């Protein structure tokens, strides 16, 4: 069956050699020595000019971390990580003067260009005013390694009362807010990686949307790992007050590299009464080569709490990169009638391993959650959906719907589905469905009879398979994500 073989070959190439974003930027770095100890944490804290309470918080987290062990339950395997063999602080050297966009290193702007950051966003970064158009402007808080180097649209946001800044800045400028919420959704000791992050996080974003404000633009942050052997430990905190809303976009690519790089981010979301948070991610970090050398280890803790009644948190993710993904964006549905959503596409190829999913914890009455997860495995990769739906005794009227579909491309990969369903309320309703199959020969033949090449046919069918998730992405990202899936399949049929 040549078609099958070709398809397999096609998709086995997914990602490999087509990784377009493998390059390094030559920028002078300020780097801490390798290793992790209290002195390094003190160094990070002092470089960040943090108040004493922040340092104490970090040190406490470090103590907790020391007593913990790496989790082993996920279906991923990797050589032991030497946590002492990494740099925990690296910052591009800033030129003196105000932090205006003109001051941004031109090399960095070229990096954004190669990264494919849309032109208008580059223009924003370059400080060019964007004419008022029909499209909603996007604010970019670009994280380069560990330090935010540029923030745009600050002013518009300030006028609306929205705070959008690097978290290191928020620690200094808005200490009350940060202190009030930091670690309340993901406590430092929640898990091994969150503890590590709490001890050594260097930067990330802080968003605060005050009562009744609809954030006037989509907030977007591009993460990127650059320097050799630097772990990346972003910390993001988003607090949305009563009746307010925000849409936050996060995307990342990383340069080609041989050594594995550790990434352990923590994202915390807090939604009050009638608030809504939409958090979208396109993750395309370096997945390693065909033999699984190199690639990012992506151990992320993302969690949101719907504290208020009728609040809503929606996670959308398109995960195509990283050698290892360990990630479960979750919702704690506390407020009555609150809503949690998780939409996910995970593509793995070659030797990639992904163990990703969500947790929906129903605490309040009439809370609702939806989970749509699409998994595509190719090459010699393994991909697991792991999800928990838990309904607690007080969550009468809770509803959950879960749909997990896996597509296998080639006979050397694996696709796994591991849902945990726990209900302690007789008036809750949970529905879970999962399917696993390969691309249908009928569909392939139908498309090819209409003149599509096998490669285009596979691309089309895969995009169709992911439609329910892709349509949840904001416009800016939907196009990018679709392209990403297509690029992944590009050059695949010989």
């Amino acid at each position, binding site marked *: 069956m040549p078609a099958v073989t070709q398809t397999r070959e096609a998709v086995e190439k997914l990602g490999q050699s087509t990784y377009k974003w493998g390059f390094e930027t030559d920028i002078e770095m300020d780097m801490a020595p390798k290793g992790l100890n209290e002195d390094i944490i003190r160094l990070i804290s002092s470089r960040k000019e943090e108040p004493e309470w922040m340092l104490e918080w970090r040190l406490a987290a470090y103590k907790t971390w020391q007593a913990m062990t790496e989790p082993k339950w996920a279906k991923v395997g990797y050589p032991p990580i030497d946590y002492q063999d990494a740099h925990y602080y690296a910052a591009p050297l800033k030129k003196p003067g105000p932090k205006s966009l003109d001051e941004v290193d031109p090399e960095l702007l070229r990096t954004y260009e190669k990264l494919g950051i849309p032109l208008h966003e580059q223009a924003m970064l370059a400080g060019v005013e964007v004419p008022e158009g029909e499209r909603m402007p996007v604010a970019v808080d670009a994280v380069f390694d560990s330090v935010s180097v540029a923030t745009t649209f600050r002013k518009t946001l300030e006028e609306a009362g929205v705070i959008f800044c690097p978290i290191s800045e928020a620690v200094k400028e808005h200490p009350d807010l940060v202190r009030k919420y930091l670690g309340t959704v993901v406590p430092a000791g929640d898990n091994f990686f969150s503890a590590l992050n709490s001890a050594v996080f260097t930067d990330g974003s802080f968003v605060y949307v005050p009562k009744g404000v609809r954030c006037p633009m989509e907030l977007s942050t591009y993460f990127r790992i650059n320097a050799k052997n630097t772990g990346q430990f972003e910390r993001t905190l988003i607090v949305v007050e009563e009746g307010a809303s925000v849409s936050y976009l996060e995307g990342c690519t990383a340069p080609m590299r041989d050594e594995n790089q550790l990434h352990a981010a923590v994202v915390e979301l807090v939604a009050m009464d009638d608030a809504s948070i939409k958090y979208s991610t396109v993750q395309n970090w370096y997945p390693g080569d065909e033999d699984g050398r190199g690639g990012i280890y992506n151990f992320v803790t993302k969690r949101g709490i719907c504290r208020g009644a009728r609040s809503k948190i929606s996670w959308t993710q398109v995960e195509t990169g990283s050698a290892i993904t360990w990630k479960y964006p979750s919702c704690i549905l506390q407020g009555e009638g609150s809503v949690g959503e998780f939409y996910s596409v995970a593509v793995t190829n070659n030797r990639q391993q992904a163990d990703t999913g969500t947790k929906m914890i129903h605490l309040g009455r009439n809370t609702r959650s939806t989970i749509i997860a699409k998994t595509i495995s190719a090459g010699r990769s393994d991909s697991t959906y792991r999800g928990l739906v838990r309904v607690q005794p007080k969550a009468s009227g809770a509803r959950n719907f879960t749909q997990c579909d896996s597509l296998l491309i080639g*006979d050397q990969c694996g696709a796994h589905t*591991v*849902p945990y369903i726990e209900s302690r309320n007789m008036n809750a309703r949970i*529905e879970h469905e999962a*399917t*696993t199959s390969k691309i249908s020969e009928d569909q392939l033949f139908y498309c090819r009879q209409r003149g599509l090449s096998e490669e285009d046919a596979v691309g089309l069918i895969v995009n169709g398979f992911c439609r329910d998730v892709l349509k949840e992405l904001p416009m800016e990202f939907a196009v990018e994500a679709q392209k990403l899936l297509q690029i992944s399949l590009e050059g695949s049929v010989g």
Partner: protein
Amino acid sequence: MNALSKDMSGPLALFANRLNTPTGAERQSAAGALARTGLPDRKVEAWRYTALRALGKQDYAAPPEQVDASTVRALLDGVLQAHPAMAALPRVVFVNGRHAPAFSALPDDVDLSFFAHEPQFGLQAAPDRDPLVALNTVLAEDGLVLRVPAGVDAGHVMLISLGVAGAEPLSFHPRHTVVVEKDAHLRLICVQAGQGTYFHNPVMDIRVEDGATLEHVTLQTEGAQAISLGTLYAHVGHQSVYDSFVLGLGGLLVRHEVHAHLAATRGEVHVNGAQRLAGQQVGDITSVITHAASDCTSRQTVRNVLDGHARGVFQGKVLVERIAQKTDGYQMNQALLLSPDAEIDAKPELEIYADDVRCSHGATVGALDDEQLFYLRSRGIPEHEARQILIDAFLDEAVALVVDATAQTFCRSVLAARFAGKGEPS
């Protein structure tokens, strides 16, 4: 080889005085495994929903030699009288894990022997991976060793396991082996019942050879204070069928764990089940279905009805190995919660390494459908009765999957006798 008794903690300590001196390679190796792992706690993934705390704090004694015959007779009659056809079927009766010839009516068309005479541990059990199998391996005294010769249709055989204990806890660990040879056919009905505080820890090793069929129904009506943790291995050959169904009604803590291994092409397994629990009961239906050959089919439908403070557990893993192309796997677990304090924990799991497969699973949890209830009541049926009709119908869809008409009727009769006209079980 006395390491065990020295370093024993947790529930394993309850068996300490009986674990001291295992003889034979299998038992010694199992004892070694037990000493390393102990009995599982909830940190062990396979036991995350079922705690062995229920084993309590009192030591488990070996069963006494003498058991009161009238008690046994009463329990046996309870089983056989559930349906008129049952008394006529050949049966092998075990009392506290030991064969009780006086109560048995042995079948003709099969080769029959007993573990007590010729111990057989089988090839499938994995004491190093499953501590309860290890415990059984160390302590097994007796068990059925049944072989249906090639090409023979052996009809029905009942395997009745009765537990008879007083207030002092006792435990028994029977080791059964069932082989259905090439192109043979067996309908096996296992019934577990009893009274008093006992721990039943059976292991059954099943081989269904090429072209053979085993229809296997297990009726779980252990005594109200009983703990029953059974493990069953089924090796399924080329074009053979292992069709199983478990009906869980009794016991305080009951786990029915099935490992079905589709070892050759075109095999078929059904691992169906239903449980109806109330009070403080915990019922755990766990299965691992391994597709290790191409063109095999597996089907699983499990239904749970949970009342009172009962907790139902369903763990169902379907593993499709790389070689198992053209696998067709389907799994459905559904739960009905009848009380605010009832709980269901479900973990259906697909682990798939072959691409040309069709696998799916589904799970639903909910209460009785208000609209259906209203519909029935609008036709004049009192609410209580309407609920009963819907609950019965929900369970019956699983019972209807039992192919063997006798076994199916038996299950229905037992359900009817236990629950007829009652919102709550007796």
